C-alpha cells in the first residue's frame, strides 16, 4: 500500500499526527498472529494499491442517493463524497448546537478549546489502524451539544464512495461531544456507489458527560467490493446512557471495534447488534467494556444470522477493575447458521478484578428450530416465510430499543429484504 505524503505541517494537530504516524510505522497493519485479529485477515486488502487522497471528486444528485438517507423524516446531514465534504447534500447547524465538519473544527480558533480537550483523547494510540486514521484523517463529522441541549432532529453521517479512483481508502474521523444533560441521536452509514474496491478506516470518538444520552445507529449494508474497519471509542461520565446499535448486513469485510470506557458511576452502556450475512461476507464484532468505577451497567446483545459462505466473529471483552464494585455486566451472543458452509467464532473474554459484581454471558450457535417451522407451516405459513418469520423473531428484541420509529421501519424492511420475503407486519 502506498501513501502519498501531502501532510499539512502547520496544522494544529500536526504533532498528534506525527506521533500517530510513528506508532503506525512501528506496528504496521494488524496480522493474524495477533489474538484480536485471529479470525479476520487483512491480507487481501493490503495487496490492493489504495489511494488515500482522492484526486477528483464526483458530484452526486440528491435524487440518486436519496434512498441511503432516512428520507421519511427530517434530519441533519453531514455528507461526504470520496472523503470530501459535500455542502450540497448536507444540512448542518450552529443553532445552539454545532453539527458540522471536522476540518473546520480543527482549523477555526473558536473550536480550539474543545479540540484541545477531546481530540484523540479516548482513541487508542496503540491500535495501529486507529493511529493510521489519526495520522491521515482530514475530514469527518464534528458534533458538539452543549449542556441541557438536544438537537431538533437526529443527525445522519453518510460517507459515499463513487469510485473515481481505482481503489480508494477513506479515513473519516468523527468527534462527538455531548455535554451534561444533553442528548443526541446519530445514524451513520458508509455507502459505496462503485464496483471499485473501497476500504474505509473510520475512527469515532464520543464523549458523554454526566447525564448525557447518546443513541448511535450504525447501518452497514455496503457492496461486495467495500470493506469497513470501524473504530469507535466512547468515554462516559456519571449517569450517562450510551447505546450503540450495529446493523451489519453486508460489505466484503467489516470489522467493528467498539470500545466503552466508563469513567464515572451509575453509567449505562448498551451494545446491540443484528448481523445478517450471505455470500462470502465477513463481519467481526470486537467489543470492549471497561468498568472503571463502581455501580455501573453494561448490556450486550448481538444476534447473528449467517448464510451461504459467510463468516462471523464475536469477541466480547469485559474488564471490571478492582474498585468497580456492584458492576452489572451482561453479554449475550446468539447465532443461527442457515448454511453448512457458514461459520461463526464467538468468544466472551472476561477480566474481572472486583468481587461484588453480577456478570453473565452466554453464546449460542444453532439452526432454526424444526418443530417451530412445522408449527408455523401447519398454520398455512409457507416454509420460506416461516423461516423468515422465525429469523425476524430471533432478531426482534434488538430492534425494540431503536428509538427512531422511521429507522425501525427501515431496518425492518432491510431485514425482510435480506431474508427475501415480504411480511404483512412490522415487529
Amino acid at each position, binding site marked *: 500500500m502506498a501513501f502519498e505524503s501531502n501532510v499539512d505541517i502547520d496544522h494544529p494537530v500536526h504533532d498528534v499526527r506525527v506521533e500517530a504516524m510513528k506508532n503506525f510505522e512501528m506496528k504496521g497493519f494488524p496480522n493474524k498472529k495477533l489474538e484480536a485479529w485471529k479470525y479476520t485477515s487483512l491480507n487481501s486488502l493490503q495487496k490492493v494499491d489504495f489511494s488515500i487522497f482522492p484526486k477528483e471528486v464526483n458530484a452526486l444528485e440528491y435524487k440518486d442517493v436519496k434512498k441511503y438517507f432516512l428520507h421519511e423524516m427530517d434530519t441533519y446531514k453531514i455528507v461526504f463524497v470520496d472523503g470530501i465534504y459535500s455542502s450540497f447534500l448536507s444540512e448542518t447547524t450552529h443553532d445552539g448546537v454545532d453539527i458540522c465538519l471536522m476540518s473546520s473544527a480543527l482549523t477555526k480558533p473558536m473550536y480550539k478549546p474543545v479540540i484541545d480537550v477531546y481530540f484523540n483523547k479516548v482513541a487508542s494510540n496503540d491500535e495501529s489502524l486507529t493511529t493510521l486514521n489519526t495520522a491521515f484523517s482530514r475530514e469527518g463529522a464534528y458534533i458538539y451539544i452543549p449542556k441541557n441541549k438536544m438537537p431538533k432532529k437526529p443527525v445522519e453521517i453518510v460517507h459515499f464512495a463513487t469510485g473515481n479512483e481505482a481503489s480508494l481508502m477513506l479515513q473519516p474521523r468523527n468527534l462527538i461531544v455531548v455535554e451534561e444533560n444533553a442528548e443526541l441521536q446519530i445514524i451513520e452509514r458508509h455507502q459505496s456507489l462503485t464496483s471499485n474496491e473501497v476500504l474505509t478506516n473510520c475512527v469515532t470518538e464520543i464523549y458523554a458527560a454526566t447525564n448525557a444520552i447518546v443513541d448511535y445507529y450504525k447501518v452497514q449494508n455496503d457492496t461486495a467490493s467495500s470493506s469497513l474497519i470501524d473504530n469507535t471509542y466512547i468515554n462516559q461520565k456519571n449517569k450517562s446512557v450510551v447505546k450503540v446499535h450495529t446493523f451489519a448486513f453486508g460489505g466484503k469485510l467489516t470489522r467493528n471495534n467498539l470500545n466503552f470506557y466508563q469513567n464515572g458511576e451509575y453509567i449505562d452502556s448498551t451494545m446491540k447488534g443484528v448481523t445478517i450475512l450471505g455470500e462470502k461476507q465477513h463481519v467481526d464484532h470486537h467489543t470492549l467494556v471497561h468498568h472503571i468505577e463502581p455501580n455501573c451497567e453494561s448490556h450486550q446483545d448481538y444476534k447473528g444470522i449467517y448464510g451461504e459462505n459467510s463468516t462471523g466473529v464475536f469477541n466480547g471483552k469485559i474488564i471490571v477493575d478492582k474498585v468497580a464494585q456492584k458492576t452489572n455486566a451482561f453479554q449475550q451472543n446468539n447465532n443461527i447458521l442457515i448454511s453448512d458452509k457458514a461459520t461463526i467464532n464467538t468468544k466472551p473474554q472476561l477480566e474481572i478484578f472486583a468481587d461484588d459484581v453480577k456478570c453473565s454471558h452466554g453464546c449460542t450457535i444453532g439452526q432454526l*428450530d*424444526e*418443530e*417451530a417451522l*412445522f*408449527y*408455523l*407451516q*401447519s*398454520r*398455512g*405459513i*409457507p*416454509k420460506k*416465510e*416461516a423461516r423468515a*418469520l*422465525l429469523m*425476524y*423473531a*430471533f*432478531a*426482534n*428484541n434488538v430492534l425494540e430499543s431503536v428509538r427512531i420509529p422511521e429507522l425501525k421501519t427501515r431496518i425492518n424492511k432491510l431485514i425482510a429484504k435480506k431474508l427475501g420475503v415480504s*411480511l*404483512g*407486519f412490522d*415487529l
Partner: protein
Amino acid sequence: MLKIDNLHAGVEGNEILNGINLEVKAGEVHAIMGPNGSGKSTLAAVIAGKEEFEVTEGTVVLNGEDLEESAPEERAHKGIFLSFQYPVEIPGVTVTNFMKTAINESRKAKGLEDMPANQMLKLIREKSELLDINRKFLSRSLNEGFSGGEKKRNEIFQMAMLEPKLAILDETDSGLDIDALRIVANGVNKLKSKDNAVIIITHYQRLLEYIVPDYVHVLHEGKIVKSGSKELAFELEEKGYDWIKNEAVV
C-alpha cells in the same frame, strides 16, 4: 373427507405406524384413544404433513386428493388443522401478528387479497370472545410463558380463526381444568357443522362427554386394534387398555 389406507410411517427405519386404516366423513367426530407411545401423535403429525416422518406405504387422501406430495402449509390451505399436543413457543411473534400472517398466507394461496384490517380485528374479537380469551393475551409472544391450559385454549382459538375442514385435536384436554375444558369443548361444538369433521385424540373419555364422538378407535403399537361407538370410550375408562392389548395379541 379423509381416507387413510394401510398407512405405514416411521423415523429412520423405525416403523411407528404399521397399517392404519381410517375413514372420516364430513359431519363426523372420531375419537382416537390408546396408551402412551401407541402412535397417536405420530398419526396426527403424518396427516398434517410433518416431514420428519417418512411414509413407507399407504396413502392419506383428503377429498379425493392424495396428500403425499403436499407440504404442511398446503395441507393447511386445503383445510387440515392440527392442535398440537405440545404447542411450540415462538418468542418475538405476537399471537395477533401470527394469526394475521397465517390468515393472509392462506388467502394468498387461494388467490385472495389480504383481509382488510378492520375485518381482521373483528374476527379476532369474535373468536377470542368465543374462547373467553383476554385481550392482553393476544399481544403476548406466541405460547411464550403460557400455562399448559392457555396453550391449549390458544390452539383452539387458532382453529376458530382458520375454520378448518378437518381438525385434529391432539390431547387438547390435558392440562385443562374443568372450566377451561367446557369453554374449549363449547368452542369446538360451535364450530362443528355437517361440512367439517373432527378427530379427537385423548387418553380419557372426559372430553368426550362434551364433544360426543360418532366413532371411537383404539390405537395400539401403530395399528387400530378396535373401533366402536362412543360406549367403547366408557369401557376403556373403566377397564384400561390391557384387555384390548390382550385381545390384539389373540
